[in-house]
């Protein structure tokens, strides 16, 4: 569905993305993992067209993303830090986005109601806590029932209860055979849902494998253990040689 070919991005001195290649398909739940500044968010933003890669190509359903913005109607994006017009109220924000999208699709307002946003319609965006902001972001991302969900640190700042609601929702969407892209530092969050793992470091793609493959390779069950194993034991020979070529 989304194909990434030879993407490079440099911010002044920092190589944010270094020759990334990947293909994401329906039914996959891909966990983007890596330390801070490893390029996760840059990769997501590149897919969304918010960051323009220096070279390479990103296609959505084989159409380059730079060609037509219409593909974004198939993507629900939940940013790491949701930033919204300060002087808008929650109700206005939702009605504006609905108005702009003007879609005939049946809206998925499950999160909207579960997070009780309907009781906060008159709250100004300026006055919102980080957690409520996240709820707004999440509700917006799922609202149009998109084929692709891109969730950047979805559970950060959410209280445990809401976090649980969100995770359940992600699982439901996974069942609908959607493509879901998640970054998170909290590996346990990703545990039950991940099908594939992409590990980034210093803008380089260290590995991109299915859970099954990783479990087999490391002999570990849990994602956190798998990652720890991979870090501790160094990378598999194959990856090492790959790294050499890459650098």
């Amino acid at each position, binding site marked *: 569905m989304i194909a990434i070919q030879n993407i490079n991005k440099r*911010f002044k001195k920092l190589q944010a993305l270094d020759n990334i290649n990947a293909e994401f398909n329906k039914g996959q739940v891909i966990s983007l993992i890596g330390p801070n500044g490893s390029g996760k968010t840059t990769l997501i*933003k590149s897919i*969304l*067209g*918010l*960051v*323009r890669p220096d070279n390479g190509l990103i296609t959505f359903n084989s159409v380059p993303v730079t060609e037509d*913005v*219409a*593909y*974004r*109607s198939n*993507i629900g*994006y939940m*940013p790491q830090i949701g*930033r*919204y*017009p*300060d*002087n*808008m109220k929650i109700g206005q924000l939702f009605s*504006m*986005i609905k*108005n*702009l*999208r003007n879609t005939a699709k049946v809206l998925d307002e499950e999160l909207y109601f579960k997070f009780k946003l309907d009781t906060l319609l008159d709250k100004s965006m300026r006055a919102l806590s980080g957690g409520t902001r996240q709820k707004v972001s999440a509700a917006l991302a799922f609202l149009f029932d998109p084929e692709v969900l891109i969730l950047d640190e979805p559970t950060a700042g959410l209280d445990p209860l809401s976090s649980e609601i969100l995770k359940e929702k992600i699982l439901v969407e996974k069942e609908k055979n959607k493509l879901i892209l998640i970054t998170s530092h909290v590996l346990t969050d990703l545990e039950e849902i991940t099908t594939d793992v992409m590990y980034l470091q210093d803008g380089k793609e260290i590995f991109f494998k299915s859970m099954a493959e990783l479990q087999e390779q490391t002999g570990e069950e849990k994602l956190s253990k798998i990652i720890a194993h991979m870090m501790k034991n160094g990378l598999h020979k194959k990856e090492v040689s790959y790294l050499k070529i890459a650098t």
Partner: protein
Amino acid sequence: MLKISKYVLYDIIKNRVMIGYTAFLFIVSISMFQMEENSSKAMLSLLNIVLIVVPLISMIFSTIHWYNSYEFIELMLTQPISRKKVILSEYTGISSSLVTAFLIGVGIPVCIYNFNDTGVSLLLIGSLLTLIFTSLAFLASVKSKDKARGIGAALLLWFYFALIYDGLVLLILFAFSDYPLEKITLVLSSLNPVDLGRIFIMLNMDISALMGYTGAMYKDFLGSSSGMIYTLGILIIWMLVPLTIAIRSFNKKDL
């Protein structure tokens, strides 16, 4: 696009600066007409408002608004909306509200007290300068990294067009006073929208002086109907070019 502009407008109306700007222009214009016995003197003072204050406010307001609505712009760009559409909607929203503020604040008093060629040309130039300097402000904002630099760049541009440029022209006129400079002067004034606007209004105001001992050539060219079309054409180019560059640069920008 109009849909987005609507939200931009809504946002601008809410933050009250625009209402303050309208009220400021209105009070200043009315009091000028009230204080001066003859309206032509009031028009002279208004000319300064149009040439100095209107560009300044247009630039500062547009720049600040741009940075303040960065979140909004980001949000729009996660939606299936192209960047060009977003920036053009912002431009339409800001410039139309600035022009409206100008036309209410200055336009109504002018229509009441001095509705003639001079008045109409003053309103026309004021509106065009608003559009031009909003466009320049967009360029400065898109090109600058942060708010402080953006506002700094906008102020510098304003300072350049309002003051420094004329100083340079005067220097050139004196440095090369032995040469025939009429055509060059004409070109030089086309390179500054404030100058061009000023001359346009002046030709409707001080015709006698301009036509006088020296300015006959300017009057003959710029005062003719083809000259007016030339002036307005150049001013429109002044609006379009920075905006186009801003759109291009915004298209390549990382958010």
